[in-house]
């Protein structure tokens, strides 16, 4: 193991202070491929140190005191990265807020921002001049600064004690609803990086390539903090530029000889579809790990990516999977080339009863997220908190030195460790362990319980979408509590492809019902066929079950009045 792969707390502190600058100063920290024409801009550790020290001095000059929380609201940029490390250097507790969020409706925007900053109990908000002007000198109790002025003179590192409860704060990943603030200590980060780098078999010669935003744990921990503390280079793209044109990103893999890349599931299909470049300019043979890091992992997205890029040198064993969350600092489990991700085809009705039965009809392919990484204990629990045997479904509980101590409780009145049972963190995800691998089957709260049987909305939706006339990918299933029956009623909303068919939709509805019963073994109590674009999408671009549920309830009379 290379010397720099010591991730002990004192090693992290020493690297934050750039104590190793004589050894690493001339080496590349970042290749910034951000901005028009996605040109190169190589930043060495000496460059980075100089910028970090100057901004850290600016924080001190502005009056920021050790331990104060700093929210960074900036576009994806080198300046954002410098601001993050400068805050750490100055002993502050940074967090990155999603950009851009400056809604034009100033009043509504201020209300949202005040909620985020209040949840963080942020002392400082660092943003650009235009946003700062809109916000004024403060938002609630948070002081607004635009672009920290570079400080003058030397500054001694004030990096917080390794025992401090928070080194930085990241946000839990809900697609809707209020995000929770997760404080990560030096101990959490140290445990995570030590364990994860060993599973990845990280080497001096490795390089990470990323377009991920820094306000998610995947972008921040896996794609910024891991390479920074391992002193390996990072090729950095901007999310928006990647979206507009993913081709420079995929070409840069070969140009920079990148070895590691983390992606959400949708990016696999997006790149397979939109990264058409001449084969000779594409070389993916350097990639040792392209990690699919979202739940659920779709086998078909991975297959599309593999089929598209296999001829460009993409190694089969580079396609990997990871189960991760902000509350665990990042990774819970990870597949490796020696122990690749696994697939099981299981019966959907049996899955609903909490059993795993191999099946080839009415089936669903589940993809594993690898084995728990060292130091993370995973346990599957039933409703009463009893540990489930392998191959039995239950809620995924986690324990270990990289798991958060608790969410931030800014007002101090929130319940203490409400998401914990003893020393176990209850993730809210449903899954099982098979042959030592973690399989994530869905979110606990989305499961519909019909007469004691668990039905997964994604299975109902998939069945509905296979019926000709129903718009692919545009169906939402949900459970509505039925007081009379004391159980949930399954309600299915599906968009038709052509609004004309709604005039006489009886036959189509019958087909949909039959398909659902065949798939999950339970019948929806109501099927609503609706015109195109009726279903609400979340800000992540996925169908939003929770917001569609609100819409269904709001329009219940109108929906049920349909002949």
């Amino acid at each position, binding site marked *: 193991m290379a010397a720099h792969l010591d991730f002990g707390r004192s090693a992290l502190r020493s690297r934050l202070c750039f104590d190793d600058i004589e050894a690493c100063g001339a080496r590349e920290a970042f290749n910034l491929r951000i901005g028009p024409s996605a040109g190169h801009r190589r930043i060495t550790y000496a460059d980075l140190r100089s910028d970090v020290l100057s901004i850290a001095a600016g924080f001190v000059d502005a009056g920021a005191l050790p331990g104060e929380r700093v929210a960074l609201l900036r576009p994806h940029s080198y300046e954002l990265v410098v601001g993050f490390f400068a805050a750490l250097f100055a002993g502050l507790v940074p967090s990155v807020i999603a950009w851009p969020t400056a809604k034009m409706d100033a009043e509504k925007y201020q209300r949202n921002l005040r909620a985020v900053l209040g949840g963080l109990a942020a002392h400082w908000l660092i943003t650009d001049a235009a946003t700062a002007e809109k916000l004024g000198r403060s938002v609630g109790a948070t002081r607004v600064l635009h672009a920290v002025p570079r400080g003058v003179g030397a500054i001694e590192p004030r990096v917080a004690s390794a025992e401090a409860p928070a080194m930085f704060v990241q946000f839990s990943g809900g697609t809707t609803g209020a995000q929770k603030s997760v404080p990560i200590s030096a101990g959490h980060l140290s445990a995570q990086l030590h364990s994860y780098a060993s599973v990845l078999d990280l080497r001096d010669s490795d390089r990470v390539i990323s377009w991920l*935003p820094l306000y998610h744990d995947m972008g921040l921990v896996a794609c910024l903090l891991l390479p920074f503390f391992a002193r390996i280079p990072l090729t950095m793209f901007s999310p928006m530029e990647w*979206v507009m*044109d993913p081709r420079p990103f995929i070409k840069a893999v070969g140009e920079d000889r990148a070895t590691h890349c983390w992606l959400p599931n949708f990016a696999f299909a997006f790149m397979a579809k939109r990264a058409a470049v001449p084969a000779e300019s594409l070389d993916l043979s350097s990639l040792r790990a392209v990690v699919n890091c979202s739940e659920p992992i779709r086998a078909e997205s991975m297959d599309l990516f593999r089929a598209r890029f296999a001829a460009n040198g993409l190694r089969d064993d580079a396609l990997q999977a990871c189960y991760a969350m902000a509350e665990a600092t990042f990774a819970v489990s990870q597949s490796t080339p020696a122990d690749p991700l696994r697939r099981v085809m299981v019966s959907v009705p049996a899955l609903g009863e909490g059993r795993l039965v191999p099946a080839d009809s009415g089936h669903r392919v589940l993809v594993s997220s690898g084995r728990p990484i060292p130091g993370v204990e995973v346990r599957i629990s039933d409703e009463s908190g009893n540990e489930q045997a392998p191959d039995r479904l239950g809620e995924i509980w986690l324990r270990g030195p990289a798991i958060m101590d608790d969410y931030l409780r800014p007002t101090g009145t929130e319940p203490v460790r409400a998401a914990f049972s003893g020393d176990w963190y209850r993730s809210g995800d449903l899954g099982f362990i098979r042959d030592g691998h973690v399989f994530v089957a869905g979110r606990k709260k989305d499961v519909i319980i019909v007469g004691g049987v668990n039905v997964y909305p994604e299975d109902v939706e998939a069945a509905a979408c296979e019926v000709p006339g129903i718009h692919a990918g545009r169906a939402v299933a949900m459970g509505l509590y039925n007081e009379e029956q004391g159980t949930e009623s399954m309600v299915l909303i599906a968009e038709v492809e052509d609004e004309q068919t709604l005039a006489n939709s009886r036959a189509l509805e019958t087909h949909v019902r039959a398909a659902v019963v065949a798939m999950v073994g339970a019948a929806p109590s109501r099927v609503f066929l609706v015109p195109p674009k009726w279903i609400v*999408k979340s800000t992540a*671009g*996925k169908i939003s079950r929770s917001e569609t549920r609100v819409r269904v309830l709001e329009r219940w009379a109108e929906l049920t009045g349909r002949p």
Partner: protein
Amino acid sequence: MTTDINKLLPGIREIVFMRTHDEVPDDEPLVSGGRIDSMLIVDLILDLEERFSVTIPPGDVQPDDFDSINKIASTVARFAS
């Protein structure tokens, strides 16, 4: 052949509404105004291509091309033929 932008507008307003959950004026900035982020644009592009049967070629568009309902309509019209 030119595509009538006015005929595109109702569909685009709907696609935008499904993401912003809000009635947005046709000339209001969406990207620079923070109503739509990079993750949402992935989905917006795939949706526009499907709904209007156009191909929006990567590299020929900028975030500004999606920065308002009016601009999205011009962008779709540019690639429709």
